[in-house]
């Protein structure tokens, strides 16, 4: 007799009835990215909003070309252009109320500027004179985050804290398609869903993480699908359709504000330029793909909609262009001034109260700089 036979026949007891915690169907994203421009939904869109989006898009595009030009002149150390992705950037900023918070990634300078941050201050990280040029509290914009996805848990924490305090504040956090592979992305989504935190996650799926295409990043049907496993809705939207992104983000923000919890929005878009001015995109993608996306340009999509419907004429286009030109001229002019830098700043703000050790190092640097100065003056004499 085997041990099993000695013990008698094994009769499993029936498992308790299993119930899914919720019906996953409403959480699932649409099969196709949601679109407004060029569809019947466009007729319902508010013309004023469309015109505001347009003005910001034109500005955003100009900002991108100007910043890229500044890298060529050596005025900017590096610039990750968001050309082709302006609709996501602008809609992210315009979907929020003033009291809400934005948690941008390093490519999201445009969203930061559209939120009201000074264009030069938004570029300090990339110019290299300081890490974060703006006061995060002034416009409720967290510092641009260079390590990927690490700002997402911060957004969850801030939104949670606001709710604990009784404030109806929403946090919108931006991340790239590559960033969705990081552990921090998963942890942030899970916390947000468990806490029902008022957060909106915006994934700008621009096709690549530097050289790695989406197919090597995820095997999921879409990035929006990732939401369902955490228990939050996932929405898929055409990221080049400013009206659609604005509507979807607006819905998600309202849902969060009303206590409905987080949403994951995937905006399908494309990075027209290389990863940064230092990258060589010809190594990993062909021109034909880029050209196909150029034909689906966010600025032109909206411009066509507005002009076809008689909401924008040549004069309107020209005035948006001039406004963007003025912004670019101002940016250029201010970026062409040498930044004022004081090396002594290195020792400030490391701690609330500086340490004896840092005071010593500060004195050392001061002495070095004075010696340098004396040498130079000696040379001149």
């Amino acid at each position, binding site marked *: 007799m085997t041990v099993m036979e000695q013990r008698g026949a094994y009769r499993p007891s029936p498992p308790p009835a299993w119930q899914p915690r919720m019906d996953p169907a409403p959480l699932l994203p649409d099969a196709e990215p949601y679109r407004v421009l060029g569809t019947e939904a466009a007729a319902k869109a508010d013309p004023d909003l469309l015109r505001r989006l347009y003005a910001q898009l034109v500005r955003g595009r100009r900002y991108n070309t100007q910043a890229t030009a500044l890298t060529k002149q050596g005025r900017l150390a590096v610039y990750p252009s968001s050309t082709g992705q302006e609709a996501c950037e602008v809609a992210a900023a315009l979907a929020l109320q003033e009291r809400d918070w934005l948690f941008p990634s390093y490519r999201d300078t445009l969203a930061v500027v559209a939120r009201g941050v000074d264009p030069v201050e938004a570029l300090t990280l990339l110019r*290299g004179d300081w890490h974060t040029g703006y006061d995060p509290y002034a416009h409720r914009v967290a510092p641009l985050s*260079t390590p990927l996805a690490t700002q997402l848990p911060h957004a969850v924490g801030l939104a949670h804290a606001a709710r604990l305090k009784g404030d109806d504040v929403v946090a919108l956090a931006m991340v790239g398609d590559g960033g969705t592979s990081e*552990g921090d992305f998963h942890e942030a989504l899970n916390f947000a869903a468990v806490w029902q935190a008022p957060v909106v996650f915006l994934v700008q799926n621009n096709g690549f993480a530097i*050289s790695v295409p989406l197919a090597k990043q995820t095997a999921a049907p879409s990035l929006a699908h990732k939401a369902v496993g955490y228990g939050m809705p996932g929405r898929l939207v055409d990221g080049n359709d400013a009206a659609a992104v604005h509507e979807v983000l607006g819905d998600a923000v309202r849902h969060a504000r009303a206590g409905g919890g987080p949403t994951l929005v995937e905006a399908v878009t494309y990075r027209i330029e290389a990863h940064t001015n230092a990258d060589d995109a010809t190594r990993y993608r062909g021109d034909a793909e880029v050209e196909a996306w150029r034909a689906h340009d966010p600025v032109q999509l909206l411009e066509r909609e507005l002009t076809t419907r008689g909401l924008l004429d040549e004069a309107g286009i020209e005035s948006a262009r001039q406004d963007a030109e003025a912004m670019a001229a101002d940016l250029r002019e201010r970026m062409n001034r040498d930044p004022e830098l004081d090396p002594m700043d290195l020792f400030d703000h490391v701690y609330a109260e500086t340490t004896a050790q840092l005071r010593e190092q500060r004195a050392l640097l001061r002495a*070095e700089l004075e010696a340098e100065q004396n040498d130079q003056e000696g040379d001149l004499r």
Partner: protein
Amino acid sequence: MTTVAVKPATMAQALTRAMRDAMAADPAVHVMGEDVGTLGGVFRVTDGLAKEFGEDRCTDTPLAEAGILGTAVGMAMYGLRPVVEMQFDAFAYPAFEQLISHVSRMRNRTRGRMPLPITVRVPYGGGIGGVEHHSDSSEAYYMATPGLHVVTPATVADAYGLLRQAIASDDPVVFLEPKRLYWAKDTWNPEHPTEVEPIGRAVVRRPGSSATLITYGPSLPVCLEAAEAARAEGWDLEVVDLRSLVPFDDETVCAAVRRTGRAVVVHESTGFGGPGGEIAARITERCFHHLEAPVLRVAGFDIPYPPPMLERHHLPGVDRILDAVARLQWEAEG
């Protein structure tokens, strides 16, 4: 060791060649990381490997450092020799959990039954004008973790030789690549490329009699320049390149310090809690009676790595080294 220098090459090229030769010699060697395949890495150090060995041997991974190192652990458990690239120093931090909790101690926890032959390549250090999170010197964190070898080449020959040794090592090696030396050209003998001292040995790069500069990686060229400049002041400086922080070569370092009686440790990572403190303590413990002056440190300031426009004030340069050398003399005089 004499190596006939026959060919100029950059450190990046030597590193690529080391991986290529290791992959050709041993099918267990796999390279993986972000952008290492099609792009050849953001510094092009893995250029051509995917083409030559296929995407299974040189793999573009999803963007997740903990995942990269964590899966490398499993691959190593099953007999492969992963060579993992962390794109930049500060982007290795998500992988610290795997590195510290598993990679470094798997041999020890399993009483030697499960060694992990993983090489973790980390471009590190400043001086290239990188924005925030692209210039950290994280060697002290690695040094503080028992079970890891911590290696950092400063010459083209060492880049090749040490990387081959690291990949061949049955222990995990954190291989720190000084990114500002990637493009530094040097002569190198590709016929006998592995003819360098083994991991764990320091090398005297410049003999001298007045004082010893002890350094590694990105600071080696700065120290050599300082030694040249010091000649004008009548100082004959010796320069020791550590090459390997763990294991540490007490013998070579102490022999050098005993000869000169004076030592300055130079590195760009922070001084407080930095590698220099450990090195100075070891020298003091072993050579106290030979010392004519306290062991000094010239290091980066104890601040988060500054933005690029200010980094020159932070990084130890020739003048700061010479000032320290002058202080050694003053200490000696009284």
